[in-house]
């Protein structure tokens, strides 16, 4: 960060990187979304609910949520081995746990819901970007949800709390805190922290993450509305009765 408080990529401390989200990009998935957040390019795909395989792992009273976070070999500068690494296994788990509270898994007993998060190009904050996209893919797949889930990261660079770390800040900075929450319920589903924060810094970081997250939610919401309601314009109510009532 320079003396004017401008970061390596020209942002101020409370600015997000450019963010673009598109829903329904994969034809064969039941639900999908693509997110471009800074240099991140991530696809999320949802398949299901479908039959659980292997059969003995199914749950009698609810669906099993399976998540895979995977980085493509070409997503980083040096080729990444496509086999799941320790880090990817951990992130798969935290993404699953971040999404699970938003879903009504009990509405789909004995089934499986599979979420794939594929990192095509990676930058800082890919897990929160993955969560943001995966939540949209789940909504696109038509799975009952309490709320969407929004992710946003904050961190500490040169002793200052900043919003939405990029790759350089993530690596050179002194702390990093991914955060995911359900904006309407105001409930936290993911909170991780790496580095040293004082109590006050932590509070400040959490506050900043919430504010940043709400900005992300706005864009996330827009993306979903765009997918389903674009081109329709304001609709009249004349065909309401005609619409869904069948004999």
């Amino acid at each position: 960060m320079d003396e004017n408080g401008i970061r390596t990529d020209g942002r101020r401390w409370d600015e997000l990187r450019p963010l673009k989200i598109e829903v329904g990009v994969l034809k064969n998935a039941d639900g999908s979304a693509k997110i471009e957040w800074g240099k991140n390019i991530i696809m999320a795909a949802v398949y299901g609910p479908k039959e659980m395989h292997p059969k003995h792992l199914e749950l009698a009273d609810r669906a099993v949520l399976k998540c895979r976070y995977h980085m493509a070999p070409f997503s980083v500068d040096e080729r990444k081995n496509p086999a799941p690494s320790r880090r990817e296994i951990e992130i798969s788990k935290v993404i699953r746990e971040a999404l699970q509270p938003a879903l009504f898994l009990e509405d789909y007993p004995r089934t499986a819901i599979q979420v794939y998060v594929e990192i095509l190009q990676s930058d800082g904050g890919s897990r929160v970007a993955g969560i943001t996209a995966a939540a949209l893919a789940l909504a696109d797949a038509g799975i009952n949800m309490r709320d969407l889930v929004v992710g946003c990261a904050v961190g500490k660079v040169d002793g200052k709390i900043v919003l939405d770390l990029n790759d350089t800040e993530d690596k050179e900075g002194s702390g990093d805190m991914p955060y995911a929450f359900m904006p309407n319920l105001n409930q936290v589903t993911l909170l991780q922290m790496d580095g040293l924060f004082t109590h006050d810094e932590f509070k400040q970081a959490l506050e900043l993450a919430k504010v940043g997250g709400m900005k992300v939610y706005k864009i996330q919401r827009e993306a979903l509305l765009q997918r389903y309601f674009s081109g329709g314009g304001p609709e009249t109510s004349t065909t309401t009765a005609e619409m869904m009532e069948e004999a």
Partner: protein
Amino acid sequence: MVEITRKQVIPGDVIVTGDYRPGMYVQRRGNDMVALRVGLAEIIRNDVKVIPLSGAYIPKVEDQVVGKVVNVTGYGWEADINSCFVGYLPGQFVFGRDFSPATHDLTTRFTVGDLMLAKIEAFDRTRDPQLSIRGPDLGKIPQGEIIKISPMKVPRLIGRKGYMINMIAELTALQIKVGQNGVIVLDGPAEGIAKAVQVIQLIEQEAHMADLTAKVQQLLGVQPGAAPAQPMGGENTGE
């Protein structure tokens, strides 16, 4: 009480606040009525519901579905009903009470790959759906072209009291079998099938649009606006 029609909602949105009754895909949260799906919210009198615009088929008792036999077991047939659950048609439902695997050969009625129009006889959270082919029009589907649409858009394809589907069937001279699971079988002259496929795809794409009936009529080559949304009869029933 406010009445709302076709409000665009996504999961987590508050549809309305107040003393209402939550219906389909709506949850009460304190005094708020919250949507659980992407769709169009409606309030009619006291009932709040969301008509979802996406989603997989979840079987419901009494639904009519198109199934494809995927396995013949000793006691019945398993059918793919385009859902996360496999439909099961017991032998008794086809051969009657005196059915016995020793005396009856199941493959004489349905073999793997056969299509059937069936009804969901029973389904709950604990068991896979049970199918039945007892009822008018139910049974084996000997021939036809299959197309699939999103199951959430089937009610729109059928229309009020079957208005839309009857109109399409008559104007294309086809026999159309529609399953609530989004599988449709078309049978009849080739040019009719081509036309019907176009129409059905249009309905799927624009299911949430208001002027759908007119668009369909236009595509089928009748005067749009002639008798909208009345169950059968009227000027556009014959070609």
